[in-house]
């Protein structure tokens, strides 16, 4: 997989949201939701993006999709820098990059039928003159997509509220597949689902990847889900990627103290293992991204912090082959 072409290349991506401190005050503060992340996703692989609530996962995905205008950085999809692309270029790029969202309830228009929701991206493309498709061709495509994601085509004229959570997620996936994209950005697509439905949808993602050679950026907060789907994994903390490695290396030998704590905190459904496990219990809460820190973002909660960590910011560097980590335990400050 490491010899496949780079499909998505994210460089120095920042997304700072301005917040006003008071109604009349001119002084602006910022939420540093994403504060400089770099990573690449190769064709056919799944990059899992994991981290706690508010660490900037969704913001990263949305800034890549240009749903937000990034504060800084570049996002290359193939050779095109999306942050500098024209409106028409962006629309054309959408054909190659689609999103699936967490909430299968909120992300579908309640007044559209399943068939119309799935056909919508095709209709938009047709309208903008980017694609030709007859009404019959669109109908066929919708039925074919429904079958691919495991929905009966007889449900075409039903509305979202007539479907269960898992079925709605299937509609969202069919819509994302409509234009035959190479890359799908999946933002917590199984987090709202029950265990038995979650495994059905995870299998569907894998089957579709095998069949169409899809590339995924897959966001989840559940480390076992990430382990199951990912070829590579990036761990985020407070707006930054703190570690990125091949999935098997990251799970076998986590380097960053935060990754270690995350892995040790995740419960394992086996009472014998649970009884013997030593947890690293972190103190304190996940801090707020409303300021930039002079030192390591994990300093306050890090069980291994050193003096230097308070004063200097570590950066993401290779510690082992294909395994990058941002921590002074592995490299000296510049």
């Amino acid at each position, binding site marked *: 997989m490491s010899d496949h072409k780079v499909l998505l290349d994210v460089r120095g991506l920042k997304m700072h949201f301005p917040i006003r401190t008071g109604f009349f005050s001119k002084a602006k503060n910022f939420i540093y939701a994403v504060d400089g992340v770099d990573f690449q996703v190769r064709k056919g692989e799944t990059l899992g993006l994991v981290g706690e609530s508010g660490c900037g996962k969704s913001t990263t995905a949305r800034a890549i999709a240009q749903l937000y205008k990034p504060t800084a950085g570049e996002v290359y999809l193939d050779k095109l820098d999306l942050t500098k692309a024209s409106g028409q270029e962006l629309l054309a790029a959408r054909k190659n990059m689609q999103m699936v969202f967490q909430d299968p309830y909120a992300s579908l228009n309640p007044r559209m039928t399943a068939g119309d929701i799935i056909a919508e991206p095709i209709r938009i493309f047709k309208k903008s003159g980017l694609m030709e498709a007859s009404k019959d061709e669109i109908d066929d495509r919708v039925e074919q997509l429904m079958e691919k994601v495991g929905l009966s085509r007889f449900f075409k004229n039903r509305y979202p509220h007539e479907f269960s959570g898992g079925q709605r997620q299937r509609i969202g996936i069919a819509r994302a597949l409509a234009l035959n994209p190479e890359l799908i950005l999946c933002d917590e697509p199984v987090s709202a689902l029950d265990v*038995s439905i979650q495994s059905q949808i995870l299998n569907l993602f*894998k089957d579709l990847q095998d069949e169409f050679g899809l590339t995924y950026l897959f966001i989840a907060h559940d480390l076992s889900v990430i382990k199951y789907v990912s070829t590579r994994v990036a761990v985020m903390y407070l707006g930054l990627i703190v570690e990125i490695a091949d999935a098997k290396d990251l799970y076998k030998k986590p380097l960053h103290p935060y990754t270690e704590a995350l892995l040790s905190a995740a419960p394992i459904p086996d009472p014998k293992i649970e009884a013997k496990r030593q947890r690293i219990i972190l103190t304190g809460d996940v801090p707020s991204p409303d300021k930039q820190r002079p030192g390591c973002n994990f300093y306050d909660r890090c069980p291994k912090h050193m003096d230097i960590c308070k004063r200097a910011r570590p950066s993401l560097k290779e510690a082992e082959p294909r395994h990058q980590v941002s921590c002074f335990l592995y490299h000296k400050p510049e």
Partner: protein
Amino acid sequence: MSDEVILQVKDLKTYFTVDEGVVKAVDGVSFDLRRGETLGIVGESGSGKSVTNLSVINLIPTPPGKIAGGQVLFHGKDIFAMSSGEIREIRGNKISMIFQDPMTSLNPFLRISTQMVETIVLHQGLSSEEAKKKAIEMLKLAGIPAPEKRIDQYPHQFSGGMRQRVMIAMALSCNPEILIADEPTSALDVTIQAQILELMQELTHRLGTAVILITHSLGVVAGMCDTICVMYAGRIVERGRTEAIFETPRHPYTMGLIRSVPRLDQEAKGRLYSIPGQPPNVIDLPDCCPFYPRCEKAMDICKKKYPPVVSFDNDQSASCWLYTKEARNV
């Protein structure tokens, strides 16, 4: 955990009348809870976990809900036969609850001190100074830094994890015999979840509190519970000691659940096992095994009659036709 049973739920039925018909949210649930025991209730969304526990403390909104049958015996006394005064004496004092969203039980307009002191004074007859001291002590136990200062703050000044700690402190401040925790960590991050679960385990062990822990996470029950009840479509379909449930699950639904979760401690290979189909709608369920349409092992009899409870020698039991004479005869 001792052998003394402090709570008995017997054939509990809780129904809701809605436009579409009668929702049999809980339909014949029975279990015992012993002093100091941690009992886990697992099941999919809508399987009746919360309704079971709201029924235990008689907090079902009526209408649309009603207790359609059964008993809940607390130290042998039927909760449904108690006067509202008697039940108030138990609720929040002998049996307390924490919920997934702490804001459902914290009043956003009152300082934490006001809320805690009020409960302690009401239930324990302490003076308000003594009650405040006790409250600070509980917050400290719950790991709130500088509790003397934080106690006079309002709920919104705390983070999600800290609010959950405050809830636990409040719930345990009256030394309850039973703590009912409904998805207490589902809204929290993994590292915070680990903190809160450890806190709950430590405090309840120290105080000898029995816990009913409702969750959909098999990982959480594996680490926390002595015994487990698995719910499906308003009924308990399997129960047993935690190790037994994970080692020798008997009900096909339990087996399927355990096999469907991706595991942190195993190599990810191939497809995940998955249970086909979806959980049933609990309106107008036919009187057959509710798992029948999704079950790999289903037999003819499964779609005709609800299966009986079969007991196994390790204190485990399951409602499934597989283990009956009838199944062997067909």
